[in-house]
């Protein structure tokens, strides 16, 4: 099975959360990890990908610094956010796979499952999917004007490992 490495260039890791009823967007970068993937045998794929929590960018430096602090992502203590797959399964929709695995934020690991696509582009693959999480499940922030639930949109470009 071929091994790929996720790269920042060509990738986006975005989230949307409501604050006081209005959508606020943000993103992360600093992709790292390995992806084992074979388009002919995708159910044997394995993902172990992490991102740099310190790269959080909501287009507002004051807020970004606030989100890096202890009450939210506590990036000094927990610098990485990690996705690890435990199982990849087929769905009844052609070209759509189901990622089942673990998401770790602030040292708190939760099961996560979401559909995704693997789009081949030359030697590379673009993995595209989205899911919803509750930030309080991971101890990210407390009671505030920011909604508990947020959506994460992944577009991860993976280059074939040399």
């Amino acid at each position, binding site marked *: 099975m071929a091994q790929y490495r996720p790269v920042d260039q060509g990738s986006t890791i975005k989230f949307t959360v409501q*604050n*006081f*009823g*209005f*959508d*606020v*967007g943000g993103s992360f970068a600093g992709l790292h990890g390995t992806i084992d993937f074979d388009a002919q045998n995708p159910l044997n794929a394995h993902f172990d990908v992490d991102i740099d929590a310190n790269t959080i960018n909501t*287009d*507002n430096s*004051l*807020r970004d*610094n*606030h989100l890096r*602090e202890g*009450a939210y992502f506590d990036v000094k203590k927990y610098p990485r956010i990690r996705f690890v797959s435990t199982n990849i399964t087929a769905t009844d929709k052609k070209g759509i796979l189901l990622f089942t695995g673990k998401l770790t934020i602030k040292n708190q690991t939760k099961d996560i499952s979401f559909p995704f696509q693997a789009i081949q582009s030359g030697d590379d693959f673009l993995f595209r999917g989205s899911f919803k999480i509750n930030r309080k499940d991971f101890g990210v922030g*407390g*009671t*505030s*004007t920011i909604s508990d639930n947020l959506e994460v949109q992944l577009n991860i470009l993976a280059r074939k490992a040399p």
Partner: protein
Amino acid sequence: MRIKVKVLIIAGLCCVVTVITAATSINKPTDDLYTNLQVLPKDISKKDLQKIMVDDFEDALGVSCSFCHTQKNEVGDLDFASDAKPEKQIARQMLRMTLNLNRDYFKIETPVMGATGNVAVTCNTCHRGDTFPEEGGGVKN
């Protein structure tokens, strides 16, 4: 002699008119057209608007203009009318909430913020100079 008196009276009247005009124009609506005011009065004076922006937003939240207003060019000029940043929408909603608190709970029939304001609850009532006061003792700017 009569001509001199007339000239002096006319000159005096001109001075009075000039002083009154200057004094009253301080708190009159500015000639600048505010194109996207949705909560604040559309004919708000420049003085009132600046007081709200500086005292109620900048000082109470510890932020600068660019916290809510988006940049319109690479030099850093701000597009004050633009609603591109969600922070501006949130600020409007907070402002509505603050005005409603004053009207509904403090029985101020027509709550007004700014230089001629009459409100009991202001942004600073909760923020106290803290941009993100929800955790108590958050970021002080």
